[in-house]
């Protein structure tokens, strides 16, 4: 067997997603599936999302498009008209998966809902990704990233306590939650089909996917005594023993700290298994003469967040704050590694690109962009399977780049057909 065989090599995926869902097909493509991105004639509107190559906007310059459509092929096709649908249905016969992230109901309106697709190809798996799901009272709600983030409870808990709820400055709620769930659902259904021979419909909902990101505390406190947890910014909250009839109580300690040239992350864990890291940090602070009496007296194996007072926590935290402020990110990270302290810098892109571990694992890969006569560094394989290495990157497709390859060679259309369809703006 050729070494280029990937885990998903036998599968063909028709990818109709917009920017919300690109990463779903991208992962399947990395794993070896033949993913064909189907764009509107003229190109996908998401090609206008920045940032852009050399800051020059243009459909072939969107870094957003490049990052999440790598390893796919692309054709242009108007799936709204009859001619386009006839071609789509021919592609469908040989497809294993159809991915889409239109507003719910759009595919049905086009006559391309799951029952219609299944009639043409009963083995096909249709994966629909949306903000709120294909059914339910919010099905038709507009669902931009920040809205889904807010309605999933994440915004309320993100951000500084003295300001309003916050969303990340890069809209990745759909990417890290909904589109990934769509990818998992697709894989479960592909595996299931291997047993039953039948396809099915997957309804992936970003809101539902994002709720578990809250972790258990907000739910636990609500369950215990209807306490509503609010955002705490750079702090980490430790819950104290709740006794019957008493409201929940907690202490706060920093999780993000400023240092000389940026920020670092450190969580003071206690008890066997995790407390060693904090003990090692305390020894280091002490060795530099910066540990106060309270910190010097703490045994991190015995320390209990459940019973300590906020005053004590503040005394300890202030020692940490002063100590970190006196050092640089690099100093802290380097020494932390030597001392087995779980302390990490708040990395920016530059830090990531220069990080030894990622360089040693050859995570960064250079991808050729022949039209631009250059190669560009991308994040490399997301997994390292021993038998089926991930596909070597091929830059994201240009508008209609594989039209001839797919329509002429694979679908058997004639050049004349193609030219007619182009003039009719079907392709």
């Amino acid at each position: 067997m050729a070494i280029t065989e990937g885990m998903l090599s036998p599968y063909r995926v028709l990818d109709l997603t917009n920017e919300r869902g690109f990463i779903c097909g991208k992962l399947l493509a990395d794993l070896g599936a033949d993913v064909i991105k189907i764009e509107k004639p003229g190109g996908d509107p998401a090609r206008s999302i920045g940032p852009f190559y050399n800051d020059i906007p243009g459909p072939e310059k969107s870094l957003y498009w490049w990052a999440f459509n790598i390893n796919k092929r692309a054709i242009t096709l108007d799936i709204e008209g009859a001619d386009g649908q006839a071609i789509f249905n021919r592609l469908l016969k040989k497809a294993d998966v159809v991915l889409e992230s239109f507003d719910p109901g759009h595919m049905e309106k086009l006559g391309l809902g799951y029952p219609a697709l299944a009639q043409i190809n009963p083995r096909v798996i249709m994966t629909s990704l949306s903000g709120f799901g294909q059914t339910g009272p919010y099905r038709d709600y507009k669902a931009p990233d920040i809205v889904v983030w807010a309605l999933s409870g994440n915004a309320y808990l993100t951000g500084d306590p003295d300001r309003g709820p916050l969303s990340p400055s890069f809209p990745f709620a759909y990417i890290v939650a909904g589109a990934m769930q769509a990818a998992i659902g697709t894989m479960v259904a592909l595996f299931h089909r291997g047993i039953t021979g039948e396809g099915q419909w997957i309804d992936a909902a970003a809101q539902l996917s994002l709720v578990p990101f809250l972790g258990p505390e907000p739910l636990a406190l609500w369950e215990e005594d209807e306490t509503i947890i609010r955002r705490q910014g750079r702090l980490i909250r430790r819950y104290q023993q709740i006794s019957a009839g008493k409201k929940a109580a907690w202490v706060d300690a920093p999780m993000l700290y400023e240092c000389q040239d940026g920020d670092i992350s450190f969580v003071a864990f206690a008890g066997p298994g995790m407390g060693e890291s904090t003990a090692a940090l305390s020894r280091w602070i002490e060795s530099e003469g910066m540990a106060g009496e309270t910190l010097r007296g703490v045994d991190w194996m015995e320390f209990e967040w459940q019973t300590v007072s906020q005053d004590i926590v503040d005394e300890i935290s202030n020692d940490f704050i002063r100590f970190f402020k006196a050092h640089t990110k690099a100093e802290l990270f380097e020494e932390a590694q030597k001392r087995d302290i779980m302390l990490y810098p708040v990395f920016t892109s530059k830090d990531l690109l220069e990080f030894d571990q990622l360089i040693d694992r050859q995570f960064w890969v250079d991808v050729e962009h022949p039209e631009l006569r250059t190669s560009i560094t991308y994040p490399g394989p997301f997994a390292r399977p021993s038998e089926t290495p991930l596909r070597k990157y091929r830059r994201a497709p240009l508008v209609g780049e594989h039209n001839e390859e797919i329509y002429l060679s694979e679908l058997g259309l004639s050049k004349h057909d193609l030219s007619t369809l182009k003039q009719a703006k079907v392709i």
Partner: protein
Amino acid sequence: MTKKPFEGINVLDFTWIGVGPRTVSYLAYYGATVIKVESAARPDPVRHATPYKGGISGLERSYRFAYLQHVKRYDITLNLNHPKGIEIVKRLVDWADVVADGYTAGTMEKWGMGYEDLKKIKPDIIMLRTCMHGQTGPLAKLPGTGFTLTALSGFAAITGWPNRPPAGLYDAFTDSVVPLFNAVCLIAALDYRRRTGKGQLLDLSQHEVSIHSIAPLILDYTVNNREPKTQGNRLDYAAPHGIYRCEGDDRWCAIAVFTDAEWNSFCQAIGNPAWTKDSRFSSLSGRKQNEDELDELVEEWTSQHPPEEVMVRLQEAGIGAGLAANLKDLYENPQLKHYRCFEELDHPEMGKLSLYQPPGFTLSKADYERHRPPLLGEHNELVYTDILGIPDEEFVQLMTEGVFD
């Protein structure tokens, strides 16, 4: 009756804390048999995580453990430092299709349980390994948690207000992101094995996986040499785009207006106050240029209405809007109810337990399973005698020798 997707797939689960359990859950949701291996001397540390149910500490009372282990799995205790413990674990490897390892790199090797060892026992085994930095490289053994990895992955740096240090994300954010990538790879490997009969080792670095979520920002650096900025709730191609104060105590609503057509609908929906006619706001570029003022004016309006009303009124006009939900709002949210987001389970020690965590997708031909979290060593007898076929007398003998400690 249709078979469940993963019926007959056996998973031996050495993962703990957050990422591994949530990865394996996707197999358990759909019918795999999962055996979670703990040690009585050193159980999953999350069993010690506060808050506890009713404020009473105990190994079976941690909400965090419950939240991570709500899909059916058998729980056994096994002493891997006992020679007979190693013998037994080898028999379990032979039973398994998948071995999942979430320990720091090198831990499994210490027990003679590296991939090469497992392969000798079961040639077609799939071994999923998920640790902070992957199995190779100078920092492979560097420990960490999802809290710190969120900083190291570049997520913390892009979440904050301009001219302030980053606020970072809530909880151990990457612990929610990483399992999703892991699960895609793991199921793909199972599918490959189903077709070809071949197992393999899957090495996933939690750090590498996380970086993929922000790949366009990485390219902005490698191409344009630009570092990402924190910009509050703003987005380059929309305005207004933010989370605005509403009537009530700490009540807020997100609003996102992209196109000029949406802007016109927005103005109409809020009753066309005079300021909306200001020509500076009539185009997206104008709204971006005067965004500070625009945000103040929008908030002047929102602060006079409860967030539910802002949301419904704008959504009815076709504008993206959503209240910044707190836990109570989530409980009452009709859409989440519709998808059975919160379901109550019965737990022998914790009593009634409400948890959120169905998968984020629904399959039309397979339902998912949920189950209360298992107790420490709850299924020792079932696993050792029924599944492995150890005779009862030997089981008792091994127990007294401390093999199951």
